[in-house]
């Protein structure tokens, strides 16, 4: 199969969706002629024109508010928020309003919209342009959250997201934009709430999120050859809904759980995944839960400090080795 980048896969999914359905339109800051701060929407203005590719002012609250309004009349807005750190500026519309409308109206209203954003940890962008903050969005029933780690998942999840009746937060990893992988031409879906076992293994389960998925695969490769430890890497792909069954089944098999994610440890996605396993598979655990995440401080700017701050394959490997003395 042909290989394309993560960025190209998202661009292609957007283009195909707009070709398929007139009601899909894009909005965001410098997404038009400029093609987006990261060039994800490159070429789409030229193809679909300014009515369907709307450059907005720097108005995060209004971007998402307007997306909610347009979705109420059946349009499918795909809005881009340049950095995940800017989400708080749109949080009210997303969490307090969009997420609840379907439920409040007894299904009469639908706010089916996608909010694309990205996180840039690892690019020396400083403490207000590096945040990966997915756990904030787990307390907003009605909102779904996708965290694709591969080009295949990115395109498939975006396609599935377009069918949702409520809002979807679609979090891209900027460090993944250039990564390549096999992506089918044309339409397919990766369903929400379906994790994928990215590598099978019998000794330990690593639930990895976004950028940490390729890191976890590298760890698994390394531990298999150096220590003969067989790591199973599970990628939830969406964290709301979370595919508890795949995670729990894996832990029942391996008896050990590590969560690897770029978000901060306390109150992070790893806490939720760990709690789920305690609820449903505590008797199977042979070792304590380990979370390989960012420390609970704002990311330091200095590049060596940022590298030290971030989780990575080596740190994950060391954490796993400790469980196999």
């Amino acid at each position, binding site marked *: 199969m042909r290989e394309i980048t993560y960025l190209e896969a998202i661009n292609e999914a957007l283009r195909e969706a707009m070709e398929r359905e007139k009601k899909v339109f894009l909005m965001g*800051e*410098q997404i*038009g*002629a*400029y093609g987006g*701060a990261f060039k994800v929407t490159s070429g789409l203005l030229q193809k679909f024109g300014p009515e369907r590719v709307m*450059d*907005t*002012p*720097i*108005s*995060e*609250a*209004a971007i998402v508010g307007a997306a909610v309004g347009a979705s109420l009349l059946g349009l499918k807005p795909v809005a881009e928020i340049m950095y995940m*750190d*800017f989400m708080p*500026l749109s949080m009210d519309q997303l969490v307090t309003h969009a997420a609840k409308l379907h439920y409040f109206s007894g299904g009469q209203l639908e706010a089916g919209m996608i909010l694309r954003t990205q996180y840039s940890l690892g*690019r*020396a*962008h*400083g*403490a*207000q*342009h590096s945040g990966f903050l997915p756990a904030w969005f787990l307390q907003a029933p009605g909102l779904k959250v996708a965290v694709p780690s591969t080009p295949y998942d990115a395109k498939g999840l975006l396609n599935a997201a377009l069918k949702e009746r409520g809002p979807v937060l679609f979090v891209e990893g900027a460090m993944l934009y250039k990564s390549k992988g096999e992506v089918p031409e044309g339409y397919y879906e990766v369903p929400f709430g379906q994790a994928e076992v990215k590598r099978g293994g019998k000794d330990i389960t690593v639930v990895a999120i976004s950028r940490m998925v390729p890191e976890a695969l590298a760890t698994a490769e390394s531990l298999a050859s150096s220590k003969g430890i067989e790591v199973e890497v599970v990628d939830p792909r969406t964290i709301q809904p979370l595919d508890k069954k795949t995670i729990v089944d894996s832990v029942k098999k391996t008896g050990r759980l590590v969560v690897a994610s770029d978000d901060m440890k306390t109150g992070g996605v790893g806490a939720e995944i760990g709690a789920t396993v305690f609820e449903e598979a505590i008797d199977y655990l042979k070792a304590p839960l380990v979370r390989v995440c960012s*420390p*609970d*401080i*704002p990311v*330091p*700017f*200095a*590049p*060596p*400090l940022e590298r*030290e*701050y971030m989780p990575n394959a080596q740190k994950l490997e060391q954490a796993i080795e400790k469980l196999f003395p």
Partner: protein
Amino acid sequence: MVDELDFYRKMLTIRLLETELQKLCLAGLAGDLHFNKGQEAISVGTCAALAPEDYIVTHHRTIAQTYSKGTELKPLVAEILGRKGGTNNGLAGEMHFNNPAARHLFSFQLVGTCVPVAAGVAWAVKNYLREPQIVGCFFGDGSTSNAQFHEGLNIASLKKLPLLLICENNGLAGNIRKATYLPTDSVTERASAYGIESCRIDGNDVLSVYKTVEEVSRKVREESHPYLIEMMTTRLCWHKQGQPDARSDEELQELAKLDPIPRLGRRLADRARERVEAEVNQEVQDVIRYGLSLKYPDESVIPQLQAYLETMAVKD
């Protein structure tokens, strides 16, 4: 005091510093930098006209303001390079400059967010410290689309806060042009909507910037109310590293004719100007060499920071 040679020295320092930093950016040795090339007159003229005790609160394009408000070159460059000895020991970076000792409170990366904070500082100065300082708040024209800009102006007007709003209007928001984000001719109309007095000036003429800020800040200080100065300017460089300029080379060449530095330079005597140029060049080369010689902060600082965060919340 109007000291043309000093203005020239400061503007040139910023320009040459950024030119060197740009090389480091391209070589992967400096992070995500936003330069002021073409806009130096605004920071230099404004900060010279403010009193040293006045506060400033700034936005993302902030090297010029930081330097103009009195942060020394060495800690400034060290911070930009993320080294020990930086204003914030490499934790903040250019993006989040702050130097309370120089009364530069913070640089707000999320555009528009500096405005309500500046209003709050002005509130504290006026009603709590009861001192004669005013607060200068720098932001770009693109930021005036953000909700917090509007909410901040509204409060500042209602509470008659001594806030000097400096809009650096370069006709761009990042890589997009005015027509995409500003439906009115000028930003001053936005001030009028909140009952805030304003004026618009040529921000590439450092003398006019200085003179206007001197007059307006006297008014703001004595009468206690906000005032907005829209300073028309030209950005002659990229928006930030890694994002190609949306403008053509021809357009940039045309804009370069409005460069504030040669414009002031033409008013100066050749010998004095050339001497300043040689000195500034030397100083910038030296400080870059100094910055690159510094060590990065030690990695062990991370657990220390975590412990610090846990204990810092309460003050006796």
